[in-house]
């Protein structure tokens, strides 16, 4: 079923795809090619020429133990964020799918956080989690010093993970709900007749049937947690305390724009890009292979 449109005017198709093409070229291919060039050269901080160094930049970052610590932290961050966000979204979607009271309202309410820009959410959460005055900080009045993300690295990382997960819940929720509603009602009813309680039905019947969606969201969330965490970290902790919230995307920003090591930062961004490309590839390869039930 291939459909093609033919244009008599050879200029018209280019005009039609022009705006999009321009955007992609200016904001993706041009910066990417620049980063690639930088990654293989050594740029002087004050400008004035650069020299080709082959893989030296990559070797330098891979030899850096601190960089590997960042990679491990990023992986941990990605898993926690994805797991938390998807689990909460699935839980909520299951409730809305069972059409409890107020379903219509929740359907829209849960989606809102997705529309909030990361830095804005970061600022809001900084207040919520502030140890001196925030809502969560008020537990310090009961047990002084139990919560302090400004000095405790674990607290700081947890804070950002929670915030990132919260931002993604809306997006995950829509996809989960749509997938759950595609399952014929009678299948869950048959499960109920067979004696399975709601939680059991979720694991035995609903989850396997929405597996393609789960996989899609898993990849999307992983990608998002590798790349979108910048806005949150920059507004909430700036990578601190003592680098405990420094993930890959934030470290490359620090190295490049604070440390003025453009070449090292470019190499890091290429590594990050390859990671995202790999995830996307897996996504395409697998999702198309999944069996879809009707």
């Amino acid at each position, binding site marked *: 079923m291939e459909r093609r449109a033919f244009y008599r005017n050879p200029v018209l198709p280019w005009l039609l795809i022009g705006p999009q093409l321009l955007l992609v070229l200016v904001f993706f291919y041009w910066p990417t090619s620049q980063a690639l060039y930088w990654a293989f050269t050594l740029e002087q901080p004050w400008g004035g020429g650069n020299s080709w160094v082959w893989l030296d930049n990559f070797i330098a970052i891979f030899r850096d133990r601190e960089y590997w610590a960042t990679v491990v932290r990023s992986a941990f961050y990605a898993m926690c964020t994805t797991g938390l966000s998807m689990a909460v979204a699935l839980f909520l979607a299951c409730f809305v799918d069972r059409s409890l009271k107020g379903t219509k309202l929740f359907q829209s309410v849960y989606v809102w956080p997705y529309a909030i820009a990361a830095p804005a959410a970061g600022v809001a959460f900084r207040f919520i989690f502030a140890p001196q005055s925030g809502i969560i900080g008020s537990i310090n009045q009961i047990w002084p010093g139990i919560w302090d993300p400004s000095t405790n690295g674990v607290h700081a990382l947890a804070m950002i993970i929670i915030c990132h997960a919260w931002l993604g819940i809306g997006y995950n929720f829509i996809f989960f709900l749509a997938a759950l509603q595609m399952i*014929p009602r*009678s*299948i869950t*009813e*048959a*499960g*109920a*007749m*067979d*004696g*399975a*309680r709601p939680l*059991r039905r979720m694991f*035995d*019947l609903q989850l*396997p*049937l929405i597996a393609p969606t789960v996989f899609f969201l898993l990849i999307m969330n992983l990608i998002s947690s590798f790349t979108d965490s910048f806005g949150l970290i920059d507004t909430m902790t700036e990578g601190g305390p003592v680098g405990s919230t420094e993930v890959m995307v934030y470290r490359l920003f620090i190295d490049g724009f604070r440390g003025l090591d453009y070449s090292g930062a470019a190499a890091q961004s290429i590594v990050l890009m390859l990671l995202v490309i790999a995830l996307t590839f897996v996504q395409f390869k697998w999702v198309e292979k999944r069996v879809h*039930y*009707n």
Partner: protein
Amino acid sequence: MAAISFSGVKKRYQKNDVIHGVDVEIEAGEFVVILGPSGCGKSTLLRMIAGLEEISEGTIAIDGTVVNALEPRERGCAMVFQNYALYPHMSVRQNIGYALKVAGMPKGEREAKVLKVAKSVSLDPYLDRKPGELSGGQRQRVAMARAMVREPKVFLFDEPFSNLDAKLRVAMRAEVRNLHRSLGVTSVFVTHDQTEAMTLADRLIVMNSGFVEQVGKPSEVYHHPASLFVADFIGSPAMNLVRGFFGEDGYFRHGKGGMIGLPGLAKAHLSREVSIGFRPELVRRVDAGHKGAIAAVVDYTEELGASRLVYARADGSPIIAVDGGNDPLATGMPVHFALSESDIHVFDHSNGRRVDHDGRPVRATTSVSA
């Protein structure tokens, strides 16, 4: 085996009543078919037994226990769904065994039981297939096996054959009937197909727009329809229904000046508007000179092979007759029919209920505990 009893069962969606108070007793081991046109509430009633639909008012009791507040799994019912509702990601074996697995039965025992049930519906060669790899009839069998394996107190069937072709439907009908004979489990079967209903049922519950029109044995419902609706709904071709009234002279007046002499019936039904009903197969074709013959004009005929249906019109009232003759009958030709008074049903037009020939009205659920 378990008895099911409905008392004052109502179903309300927001403010709309869809079931208006059902009082029926189903005996233990009985095969009951709920029959009615689509949207009459028959599936809703079944789902209320299963626990998939809340009971707005009244009570349903299974084996004497009121089940209104019980979850589906606590009611001891197994259900065969209209679209089978098989678990698409599980093999036939897993589908059948799921209820046992949930109940925590050990694996060996479970496998043995699944195999036994699968054999009884000749599914054993397909145990490792997925539902998507089965034919419609096989899926239907899996759905039945899944219900049987739990050894439930009650079987519920929600129009289970509506996706099968005509031949398979007849075969499955026999299978369900045999299943019931051998297991003896109380069964409630919902359908809109009257042939299916008549052949399967020990007793029929005929429903129309949320009301129970009649409860009774298939032959009872056929020969003594309790209302105009039942008279019209049961039987193919449908019963002839002619609207009119009886005069003191013993004649039934209908249509454009039509008169049928029914002196034996007239007295009981004076002074009310009625419809008389008679089965097409009980209408006899007679010669013009026959005493009390009804003169009619042929509209058209339908050949059935063994017999034919004659669609005719007597003074404006349509009459269908089953005719065994093979003389040529063309549109516009005159024909003459005769009726026996004993074959005629009379329905009061003000409420649509049957009136017996002694003049007494008939209640909806005449034979509830017959």
